């Protein structure tokens, strides 16, 4: 099927933009889930929540400072604390410069932590970074459908590579272990969980979207300029027969995927914390001890009986043993999974003991 010229000229440049927006929206939803879990564990883990909040504020402040640096406004004051971050410019610049620094402030925190992880991944991941190779370029037609297919195919390839890396991660390798730690930390700080000493202001997904909407509506001309630049970039890529345009958005898509996976891992840890809160005393430490113990035990076992799937099976053993130990502890040491009959039995037993 031949591509129509209106498709190439008008719709094709929109394809990767829409793709990135979709992934970014999914990222926002995942951030909401993380915030929900943090709010649930906050009463028992105030320092931990303060720490995650600090990470979020740190990235936000760095992005704001980066915005002032890029716009050549300069940074005169950089103040950061656990619940507050402030950056003041040297020169107050208005217009497009102010708009760009605000874009950095609102959108930067969603991508900067993921960018740090992407840089680390370049050194650790062996496959998945293919964008579009030259043989594919010959068949690419610059239509909406083809653009979105290229975008999707590259993201799929990256997701496969990333998943493969995570499943085969060697936790006894210092670089892999360090990457996982970094991923958890950055995943928890992709966005501040609360702002201010007390949770007065509601800072959620709608708050972020409202900010971005205000940013767009206040200066619609800048958005038009941004779209114009995007279209020019697309036409230049089309003219030179290079897929630079879609490649740029593919990198943004990678960043979203990294963020989503980081948040998912951070969420898993938050769920574990929330679950172990049901336990009392020293029992709540057992699931955390199970994590390294089970993994080391599995690795030692597979050291003497080698298999092709040593690393993924060890990860699987780690996950399953942690879940099993937590489940049994919850069943034995809390009322979490106790039925009415179980409770009646315990009461009877206690009564019998007293009577006896």
């Amino acid at each position: 099927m031949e591509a129509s010229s209106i498709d190439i000229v008008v719709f094709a440049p929109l394809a990767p933009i829409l793709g990135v927006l979709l992934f970014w929206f999914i990222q926002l939803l995942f951030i909401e889930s993380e915030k929900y879990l943090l709010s649930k564990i906050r009463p028992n883990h105030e320092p931990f929540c303060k720490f995650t909040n600090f990470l979020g504020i740190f990235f936000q402040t760095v992005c704001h400072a980066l915005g002032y640096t890029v716009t050549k406004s300069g940074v005169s004051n950089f103040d950061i604390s656990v619940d507050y971050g402030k950056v003041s410019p040297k020169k107050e610049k208005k217009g497009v410069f102010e708009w760009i620094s605000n874009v950095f402030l609102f959108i930067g925190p969603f991508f900067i932590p993921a960018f740090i992880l992407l840089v680390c991944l370049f050194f650790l991941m062996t496959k998945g970074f293919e964008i579009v190779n030259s043989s594919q370029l010959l068949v690419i037609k610059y239509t909406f459908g083809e653009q979105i297919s290229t975008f999707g195919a590259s993201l799929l390839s990256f997701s496969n590579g990333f998943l493969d890396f995570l499943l085969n991660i060697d936790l006894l390798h210092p670089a892999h272990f360090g990457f996982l730690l970094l991923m958890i930390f950055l995943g928890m700080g992709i966005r501040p969980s609360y702002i201010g000493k007390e949770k007065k202001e509601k800072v959620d997904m709608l708050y972020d979207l409202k900010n971005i909407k205000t940013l767009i509506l206040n200066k619609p001309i800048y958005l038009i300029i941004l779209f114009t630049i995007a279209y020019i970039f697309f036409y230049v890529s089309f003219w030179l027969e290079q897929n630079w345009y879609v490649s740029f958005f593919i990198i943004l898509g990678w960043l979203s995927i990294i963020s989503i996976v980081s948040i998912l891992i951070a969420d898993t840890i938050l769920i574990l914390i929330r679950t172990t809160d049901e336990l009392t005393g020293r029992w709540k430490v057992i699931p955390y001890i199970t994590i390294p113990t089970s993994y080391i035990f599995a690795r030692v076992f597979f050291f003497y009986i080698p298999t092709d799937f040593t690393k993924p099976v060890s990860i699987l053993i780690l996950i399953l043993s942690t879940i099993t130990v937590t489940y049994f502890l919850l069943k034995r040491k809390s009322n979490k999974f106790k039925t009415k009959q179980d409770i009646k039995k315990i009461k009877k037993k206690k009564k019998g003991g007293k009577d006896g």
Partner: protein
Amino acid sequence: MDEDELLNGEKVEKILSPHPLSFMRFQSLSMFLIIWGIVAGWLINFSEWNTIFSNNEWLSVLVWGLVLLLAGIIASILTIRWSIFFLYLGVFAGGVALMLSQGWLGASGIFIPFYMVSISIIGFLFVEAYRRSHRYIISNQRISFKGGIVTKRERTLRYDKIADIDARQGIMGQIFGFGTIIPISQSGFGLGSDKSLAAGGIQLGEKKVGFFGLFGGGKEVQTPRARSYYELHGVFPYKEVKKLVEEMVQGNVITPYQKEQVAFQKEQVDIQKQMRDLLKMQSDSKVDQKGEEGSEE
């Protein structure tokens, strides 16, 4: 504080000790030893470069020592505390001496991680013992600071002698709610100084012209600084303690309003004294007059 150490009418308000995480700068030195020990063990035994180390037993010791000393130099420069470098040098020298004396050079891949972890455990225990040696007693009359593992040090500061209060809370302190409060006495106890020095060197050509210059410029800045046993180091809950100390200082130090009141009262007393003297003079003169009149009669 023992009963016999209390002064007349003295009441203890709070007994404090530093927060377990307040000595993180010392604990991080031990933490680095653990991390580098494990990484060095992995590098020598399991990494893709392990064959290089297995061919030359001294190479692993050299790499281990170089990284350790480099970290010591960096930490010393950043904190302006050369004791860190000498500490790491001691750890390295001790390890090498042990390896040579016991003939464990060939087993450096096993020795290094075990040695480093053992040393860091000792380090953690030492820091913990040092932390536990601190005791700060806030009473209604003074603050007593006690600390030291072998040599016991003590400082007592009366509230009316406190000229200034410096308080600081790092990121860890903000997260866990602890902070450091330095009461500066009128004599300047609790103040330290920062000095800066500039040095530069230049070499022209290949050994033909050489010039090296050391340009020293002293700049001293007075800054609140004291040993952990002379300040309220890493106390928890920070805000509550800070408020308590400030209230105590406020209660024991005369305020400008109170000063005005005292001056006013002094003025009143002077006036009353003058009036008394005047009245006395008047009554004396009346008595004299009466006496004169009586003698005339």
